[in-house]
């Protein structure tokens, strides 16, 4: 069966592909898709050469902002975003972890000031693979398994 037929096509919107199957619900959560009233199709545990099992999300009439794409990058660093207009893919992009992460992730250090006052968190990305974020405040490293998206 053709892969494209496993999840139905959309007219306008965004397709997020190559999400690790076990991170699908985190992506739904960080993008607040449970509050989105547009038509959304989810597929998961689809075969993937790269990831083993992957998930895919198709959202109608929704185009994501840079900050949202950065969030996706932290959870699904191999994800691909396709922008669809009138059933055509008009833009393909691979998410990329930026050099700085501002305001979207929490510091893992319970003694960090950012976990005690209302402060916009700020990390320097010291390694993209595996992900290592250095907090600009407490200087501690938050690693891939510790990343919690705000």
């Amino acid at each position, binding site marked *: 069966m053709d892969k494209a037929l496993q999840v139905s096509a959309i007219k306008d919107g965004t397709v997020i592909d190559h999400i690790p199957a076990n991170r699908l619900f985190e992506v739904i959560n960080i993008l607040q898709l449970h509050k989105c009233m547009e038509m959304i199709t989810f597929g998961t545990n689809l075969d993937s050469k790269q990831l083993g099992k992957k998930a895919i999300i198709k959202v109608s009439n929704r185009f994501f902002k840079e900050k949202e794409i950065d969030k996706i990058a932290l959870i699904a660093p191999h994800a691909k975003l396709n922008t669809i207009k009138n059933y055509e893919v008009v833009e393909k992009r691979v998410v990329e972890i930026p050099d700085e992460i501002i305001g979207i992730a929490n510091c893992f250090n319970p003694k960090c000031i950012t976990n005690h*006052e209302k402060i916009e968190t700020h990390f320097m990305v010291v390694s993209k693979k595996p992900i290592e974020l250095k907090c600009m405040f407490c*200087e501690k490293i938050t690693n891939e398994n510790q990343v919690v998206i705000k």
Partner: protein
Amino acid sequence: MHKSSLISITDFSKHDYLKIMKLAAEFEQNPNQNLLNGKVVASLFFEPSTRTRLSFETAILRLGGRIIGFSDSSSSSVTKGETLHDTIKMVSNYADLIVMRHPLEGSARYASQVSSVPVINAGDGANQHPTQTLLDMYSIIKTQGRLDNINIFLVGDLKYGRTVHSLLQALSVFENPIFNFIAPPELSMPVEYKKFLDQKGIRYFEHTEFTDIISEADIIYMTRVQKERFTDPIEYEKVKNVYILKNKMLANTKPSMRILHPLPRINEIHTDVDSNPQAYYFKQALNGVFTREAIITHILGLK
């Protein structure tokens, strides 16, 4: 006056370190200079630290400045629930400089972003204590005549000890340092610092035995195993008495070698070492005043 805070030891360059060393030597010769005349310095100690606070306040008074502040957060509006943000906003309206000690890590960096005047970090939790590092460096240059080619033994709590981490970073900008780490496995130097040294091609050696290997040392830097850093008191009890420096262990060391300790000491240096001319920790504490005079005047652009 320009605004440049000192939050982390890496905020300063090698050039800054050397300038602070030179100024500290000048202040040691002539500690009473009226450079802060008419200036108000806020000394905000959200947790008690007698030595650091008195050393800073002595430095400010010797420079002719005046001090406002508190020595414990129980005597500030923090007890009413005021945020650090609001305290710093308010105080930076009153003072020309803020010296701050706070139990939360990253608090000093945040204060420097909020404040309209420079902030000097006098310790933010287990993170940074840059003025301690500068006074340690001043003690090294004063006793060894150099900061290059120093063979330093760091002993005790190398996992949580912020002073050893900062000193390692600072000495790594000088020529050819050799680091020797002596710690029980539970308190060994974190991987990130070893990786940092590897990247810079700096030699280091790890030991678990505290034996005659110290004969090569220029500096032995002792640290206290701090109870408050442990979540499990049994772990603390296991390691607190592992390394104790005794006078008889110093027999084969270089006569020029000096023993440093950020103080307070508990039992990690036996009192029989105190009368040995190699014991330098009490003079090291006095160097703190001169170094802090140097840092304050440098930051405020007065020297």
